[in-house]
């Protein structure tokens, strides 16, 4: 299971990639594997204000519908609209083309409270 060293992780299997004041968010390789083939992604509206732990959207696979939680709080400033046409990107490239949204954070240190790669590997046994 792929766990890139340069990302931060939530216990709910989202990843966060800080870039200045925005944080790119997606679901982990472990999460996409557990979900199976993703068939629909429900993304948040741009401009939505979320707190860490709030529901960001939903990911539907052939097995189930799962909620995606915001790993950090802030304002959604961009979403990966291409997922509505090609939800399979979440399976093929969860850390790249399969990203979900960008969140502008008020607190640039917010991601540092998340798990680092080693801690996430321990959590998932990978």
């Amino acid at each position, binding site marked *: 299971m792929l766990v890139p060293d340069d990302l931060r992780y939530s216990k709910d299997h989202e990843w966060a990639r800080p870039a200045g004041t925005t944080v790119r968010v997606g679901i982990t390789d472990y999460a996409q594997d*557990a979900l*199976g*083939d*993703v*068939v*629909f992604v429900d993304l948040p509206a741009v401009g939505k204000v979320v707190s860490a732990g709030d529901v960001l959207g939903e990911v*539907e696979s*052939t*097995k*189930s519908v799962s909620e995606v939680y915001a790993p950090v709080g802030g304002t959604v400033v961009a979403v990966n609209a291409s997922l509505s046409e090609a*939800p*399979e990107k979440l399976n093929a490239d969860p850390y790249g083309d399969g990203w979900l949204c960008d969140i502008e954070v008020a607190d640039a240190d917010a991601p540092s409270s998340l798990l680092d790669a080693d801690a996430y590997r321990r959590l998932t046994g990978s």
Partner: protein
Amino acid sequence: MSPPAPGGRAQSAPLMGRAAEPTIFELSAPGRRSWQLRTTDVPEWPAEELVAAEHRRRAPVPLAEVSERDLVAHVTRLSHRQYSVDLGAYPLGSCTMKYNPKSCDTVAALRGLAGVHPAAPASTSQGWLALLVELEEALCAITGMAAATFQPAAGAAGELTGLLLMRAYHDAHGQRRRRVIIPDSAHGTNPASVSLGGYEVTTVPSDDRGCVDMAALRGVLDGDVAGIMLTNPNTLGLFEEDIEAIATAVHEVGGLLYYDGANLNAILGVVRPGDMGFDIVHLNLHKTFATPHGGGGPGAGPVAVSERLADFLPGPRPVRVPEDDGTTRYGREMPPRSIGRVHSWHGNALVLARALAYIRVHGGDGLRRVAERAVLNANWLRVRLSSTYDVPFDRPCMHEVVLAAATLKRRYGLRALDVAKCLLDEGFHAPTVYFPLVVEEALMVEPTETESPQTLDALAEAFERIAAAAAADGGLDAAHAAPRTTPVGRLDEARAARTLVPTFDARGG
């Protein structure tokens, strides 16, 4: 070659070749009809003079045009491509796909029952009304409730009816409560029914034994809680041992307990929801009381309630009417504070006749044996398969057992879906997969009481063979190619869901 499994294994089911059955539209021939009017002396009349222009179609509906012979052949060929409870074992967990005794069909086919119009006056429907009153009393005795309605058409309709009863009860007490509690292992229909009933869902987690986490439950209970929906045994096939404490805690804040009767056949004749403290119970007659379901319906989801909710039941209800001369007649009555109708007449009445026949044929001790055999069969499979598959909750289960392919997936890449597909080639219907959601790679197996020890043995062997084959060289590729013996092979479920095409275009393309 494994020993024969009488009744349970369907590997010998014959098929006339492997060609795909065309759709009915592809069989269509312009102008062909499945009826014709014989020559009579009744004069023809132009449709234009009989039906006003605004009520006439401008063009005919493009229906398939086939003869009766072609239609029957098409439908029969399709039916021969189906698995069914009459064909073999159908261990589809949570659904209770058990064999339905034919004697119950014989009763439902009696002309005196099947030939009565529901609008016939009570005076000429005494037999039907007596049957319904007797069934209501039997179901109340089985569940420990005071009164019941037969109107809900199936389980989910029963759930909504139960929630509307909950709302009516709180309204009558001048209370506006907004939340209904549901365990995270619940049937998916529960949260949907709660939303449809105008309530908000509060989820409580399961503890490490697979039951409601009592501390978490106490944390979400307050005066805003209208009630809780529970299935007991729960969807993990486990008995909620804290049920009395749960009932007390919910009643203390003024909430009601709703029993989802989907799993009633595990406790039939052994313990009653009413005695556990439940206020509202829905029953799936099409599961526990062996009436057809699963596309072969219609179902029936009667809702039984405790005394304090009886006045709110849908109506009119069949009732006994004592006569002055000491005899009893039967009539229909609207409960005083009824929530109204949730179905025309008395619901799917012939299903009710089958259910009463089933109850009468078994008697009280027979119904108890149904539950005991169902639980015994599931536990036999649990113990037998525990050395091959994961058993996430290693304690006695009720009528169904949750296995998991999590270890097989990690070791060999064999997923629950692959196991299900391989079972088809072994001559069995697949179990439920990926449910309950709280179990990774779940395989939910419900053998039901109707399968013999030989069938269970053959089913267990099939499970074991599939696991062993995955460990061999090339085993995973073979598993991914399953099923090979069915009319249609492995479907691309992801593509079907991503590019959904729900209609057939008769013009092609």
